């Protein structure tokens, strides 16, 4: 047993002072766009979505829990069967219709965005909202490279070569899209790092 256990427990019971709200706003300002790279959905919205039918939820959820795996397995098998059978089915049906009509039918309106059930592939966005998003009017993206940090990582040995000083450059590659039609601005920041070796001469 740790001889300081009680003392540790007692010290832990003294909570450190929390940073002020003013400091947090300062931090938010300093972080800028990089603070918004990782976001989470607010819990109250998830609660709102799940609490629409509280009486039914208690009955349905245990049922779903028990049958989740079998249902998923059956769905996966059906999807696989459809995938395998689709070319065969197409070959059989194509002669029945005119070539132009067949090509129209084989190209659904939004094949990459809307699935069979009419659900959006993006969580939290309805299919209608997704389809309404403007595809046109986006100007060419502006790409910017921001140097975040440079660190000298010291001298390293290189087998079969002279030692070198290693520098690490950290960048944020920023891409900005503008849509003047909808007055929308979007920014994507991707971190990147480069390692530069500068050879040293031995005397």
């Amino acid at each position, binding site marked *: 047993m740790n001889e*300081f256990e*009680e*003392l*540790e427990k*007692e*010290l*832990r019971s*003294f*909570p*450190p*002072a*929390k*940073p002020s709200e003013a*400091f*947090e706003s*300062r*931090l938010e300002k*300093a*972080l800028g766009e*990089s*603070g*918004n*790279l*990782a*976001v*989470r*959905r*607010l819990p109250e*919205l998830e609660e709102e979505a799940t609490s629409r039918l509280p009486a039914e939820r208690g009955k349905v959820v245990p049922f779903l829990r028990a049958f989740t795996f079998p249902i998923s397995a059956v769905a996966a098998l059906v999807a696989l069967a459809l995938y395998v059978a689709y070319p065969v089915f197409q070959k059989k049906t194509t002669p029945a219709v005119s070539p132009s009509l067949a090509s129209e039918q084989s190209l659904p309106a939004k094949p990459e965005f809307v699935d069979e059930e009419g659900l*959006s592939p*993006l969580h*939290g*966005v309805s299919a209608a*909202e*997704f389809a309404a*998003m403007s*595809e046109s009017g*986006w100007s060419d*993206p502006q790409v910017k490279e921001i140097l*975040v*940090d440079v660190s000298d990582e010291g001298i390293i040995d290189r087998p079969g070569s002279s030692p070198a000083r290693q520098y690490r450059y*950290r960048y*944020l590659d920023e891409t900005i*899209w503008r*849509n003047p039609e909808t007055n*929308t601005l*979007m*920014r*994507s*920041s*991707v*971190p990147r790092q480069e390692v530069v070796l500068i050879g040293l001469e031995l005397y």
Partner: protein
Amino acid sequence: MSLTLPKILLSINAMHTEPIWKSWFARHGAKLLMFARQQARNSADAEDLLQEAFVRMWRLYGHTGEVPPGLVYRAIRRLAIDWARSLDRRVIREDNVAADMEKNAWFDRSMERNERRDALLEAVHLLPSEQKEVLTLKIWGEQTFDEIAKTLGISLNTAASRYRYAMSKLKKSVPELLSEPRGEDSK
């Protein structure tokens, strides 16, 4: 690709979201600020230190949604050393006096004050700084000795022994007060 990515970003904007750094900072901010206060000359400098260290680390690793607190502790420590080097020693001495006066600001003032707590915290403040920083990282920062050693640039054994020295001193400083909770537990 150029059409798909804007669409994804648009839909993310449409959702009600909160930056992850806020919940991360709510969990670790107070502990980090306490460590920064220990490393800095005064409260204002401590906030500057924490801001600089946190922003640097979050810009590098924030896109993953989780930054190990140890990285921010290390950044605070390195920045504090860099800043101290660039300052006049006289200024540091004067500010150390001011820092002593601010020591009560380290802990949450809303907690119940009593003689026992005051004596223990006073004993913590009287510890040598190298023991105090290990104690802070271990008790309030919840770091392992391995992480503490990396943060402070010392060996694991040194970190562990500094911690033991600090705890022994605290135990000796307030022995009669520490007997109280044992008595309550045994009932």
